[in-house]
């Protein structure tokens, strides 16, 4: 019985993230549009876009290789798995021990590795420039992310997300300098990883300013749909990660009664909504950076994260 419940719990989480991800993106777009006094597309527009793209024929460049066709499936699969291992409304997921936080970051890293290769496959200048900038951003964002993880893992005494989230929910945590530094760094990394303003602009199609969009320019049809869905999942993943580590309220284990589970789901959706509004506000208020200002921005995250980790190594009370 317990096994069936655990499998249902894990399966429910996998479906939930898949279903919520486009809604979150639609919500952010809607809020941004309202902030700009536009009507904006309906909330469900991302679903429609995805279905439309799935139904279309995929147009491949003449010299696209087999790798180019396989990568969208891989990127989608890796991102989906990573997203379904982060505690959202409930912790203690059945397979949460199969990949801890470091492994989770690395799974996302492999998705990026392959996406960067896809940018190089067709042999146009757009793909190359996109891949090149993507790996530059990653080369700063990944170490920052790992240092943040070190800090949090040292505070919680674990790299296991369920354990970390449970610890963060306990009164032992308290206010810590290193947690504050880690949170700022994590938000910066999340913005960069999800190609949001000011690092990248998900709405632009001006070649010189784009990073992620340039890299996937040659994709179309179902391949593009999967890459877009993976990007939406990644946004959801990072918000879930920040939520489960810094505002872990309402997260319940699978043994909890239905009322608590319902509270968990409502709390989770509420957190997503708040994060979506904050993201939209931030993006509306700030302008996109030049590409070579990005290293400074991410370098700040790296330094903050390193400082937080050093504080933790020096003393347990920080």
């Amino acid at each position, binding site marked *: 019985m317990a096994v069936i419940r655990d499998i249902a719990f894990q399966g429910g989480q996998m479906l939930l993230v898949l279903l919520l991800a486009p809604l979150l993106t639609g919500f952010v777009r809607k809020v941004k549009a309202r902030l700009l006094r536009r009507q904006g597309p309906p909330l469900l527009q991302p679903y429609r876009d995805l279905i439309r793209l799935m139904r279309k024929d995929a*147009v491949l460049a003449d010299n696209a290789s087999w790798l180019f066709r396989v990568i969208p499936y891989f990127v989608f699969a890796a991102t989906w798995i990573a997203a379904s291992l982060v505690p959202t409304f409930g912790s203690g997921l059945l397979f949460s021990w199969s990949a801890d936080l470091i492994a989770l970051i690395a799974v996302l890293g492999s998705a990026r590795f392959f996406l*960067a290769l896809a940018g*190089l496959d067709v042999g146009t200048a757009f793909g190359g420039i996109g891949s090149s900038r993507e790996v530059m951003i990653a080369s700063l964002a990944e170490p920052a992310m790992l240092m943040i993880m070190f800090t949090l893992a040292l505070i919680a005494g674990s790299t296991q997300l369920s354990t970390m989230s449970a610890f963060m929910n306990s009164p032992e945590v308290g206010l810590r300098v290193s947690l504050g530094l880690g949170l700022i760094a994590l938000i910066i990394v999340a913005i960069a990883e999800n190609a949001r303003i000011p690092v990248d602009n998900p709405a632009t199609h001006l070649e010189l300013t784009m990073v992620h969009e340039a890299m996937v320019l040659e994709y179309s049809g179902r391949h593009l749909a999967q890459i877009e869905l993976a990007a939406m999942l990644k946004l959801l993943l990072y918000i879930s990660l920040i939520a489960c580590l810094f505002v872990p309220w309402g997260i319940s284990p699978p043994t909890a009664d239905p009322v608590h589970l319902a509270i968990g789901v409502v709390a989770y959706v509420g957190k997503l909504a708040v994060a979506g509004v904050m993201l939209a506000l931030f993006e509306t208020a700030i302008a996109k950076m030049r590409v*070579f200002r990005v290293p400074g921005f991410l370098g700040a995250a790296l330094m903050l994260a390193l400082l937080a980790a050093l504080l933790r190594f020096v003393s347990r009370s920080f």
Partner: protein
Amino acid sequence: MMVVYALFGVAALVALAPIAVAFGVSQGKDTTTTLIYGACLIVTLGLCTIALLSLFDVSHTISQATLPLGLPWLGAHFRIDALASFFLVVVNLGGAAASLFALGYGRHEESPLRVLPFYPVYLAAMNLVVMADDAFSFLVSWEFMSLTSWALVISNHRVRENLRAGFIYLLMAGFGTLSLLLAFGLLAGAAGNYAFDAIRAAPPVAGVAALVFILAIVGTGSKAGLIPLHAWLPLAHPAAPSHVSALMSGVMTKVAVYGFVRIVFDLLGTPAWWWSLVVLAIGGATAVMGVLYALMQRDLKRVLAYSTIENIGIIFAALGLALAFKTEGLNWAAALALTAGLFHVFNHSLFKSLLFFGAGSVLNATGTRDIEQLGGLIHRMPQTAFVFLAGCVAISALPPLNGFVSEWLTFQAILQSPQLPSWGLKLMVPAVGALLALSAALAAACFVRAFGFTFLGRARTPAASGAQETDSNSLAAMYIVAALCLIAGILPGVFIDALAPVVQSLVGGRMPVQTSVEWLSIVPIAESRSSYNGLLVFVFMISSGAIAAFAIHRLASDKVRRGPAWGCGYPDASTATQYTADSFAQPIRRVFGTVVFRAREIGEMPPPGSTEPARLTVELHDLIWDSLYAPIAAGVAFAAERLNYLQFLTIRSYLSLVFTALVLLLLVLAIWP
């Protein structure tokens, strides 16, 4: 008994050298190539089996033998213990893979008779270094290893660059052996007990031990490629034939790591507190510098050589961590860090061999190693591309392949280090952690570049567009190694358990048994703290990708149309409009290179109205070469210039010089207490 069988195998390898010469003269090169590499394959497989048997031997018997060779009455001591048997597995697995690869690759060699006699002796020498149980046999085998590999580096001696690489290699190898000679001299002490057993029984006092430690880092580090002693490595490794490059990068650097572990963890007694600081600092710096250099290279094999330096840095950082824990008596944490380091030794020997095999196949098919001249090979060499991609994923430390597991274990070990009481370590370890994280991210960038510009895109030259898939022996070797990378990635528990006796013998502790953990996860300390299951991650990835593909093809669309790539409306874009590897590295060069390489970009625009092309020149400075090696070379040249003056003196001056020297020597004798 094991060691005797192993020595028979080594003797067989040595005997292959004269056979290679004799057959080469009488039978022609094709027969000899097949014969020698086939024989090497069989012998190394045998040696690998012996090593595996003694590694998995439950009673952990140490097998020793003394041969009446070398110094009269003293003999040469050999021994296989857990540490030696692990490194014998690394050496012979790499050797077997390289021999199988060479069965195909060696046929394309221009002058195989310059390679064939040295190749088996080189394998034999690496085996002997690992088995040696006294300082004399160790040094002789070490020097043999250096000299045979030097002969292999200059086997294609008509290329001037290779001769320079060989010269620098010979100098650095001599310097390294000198350091080791002094280290062993100090270890043997005044009584001259040069057998390892005697050294182990009477470890040196603190001051001597410190000196031995420094000399051991310099001696083994110069062979392994630690910065700043790495200068020869990116020159020599690519110059050799590709299967030898694979052995040098994948295996010989590991023999150097063996030397370091043997001296510092086994022979030197209790470590002092500052040793780990030195090893950690050098390891972290080597990792980042190695990969930054690799990102700036155009030569595919040189990219791989610099990436070897990076991985050696990671291994040494893990070893430094193990040393730190050992000093503080945290044996279980030391076991974790040492397992991580040794597992990375094994992993790197696999994927670096694989990548060099792939580079060799590309070199054979196209005749160039310059990645700016390649491109689009995935269409012409689909199988090589596939296995090379597996190697790239593994070396970039991405799950589910093996590189990630050892990286993950290293990070888990770093997370245990706040327990260290020393303040220096409290500040050093997180910094090294950040350096390792940075090097892992940069390594992924480096291998996106290496794979992307070699195999993807459109062919940039006729050589690349006319390439043919490589032969079946080479492919078999690459597939086997790639499969091993996958197995080590998804079943790491088996490998961690195999390392347990090695770790136990060196730090007096071991990691918990992994193979009994449910679902074959690996759990370094406790499941609530951290765990990773490569098998499940792999299965999840495959199955959810397959579900997505099935659902989309079934429910939505599975049609594909082909069309030209979008070129902003310009039809038939030339292949030169593709992004280049140099421009790919430009953002990273701008972020890191301005400091590390003092990189400068100089753009020259033609005057308005002129139709001349604009030029962009990039200046890079190798600061280590400029600030360390160039002054030494200049100093030697200066001294030689001055001493040259002594050749043209008159007879009177010579006589007075001889007289002065005599007087000075007598004075010294008189004053000497």
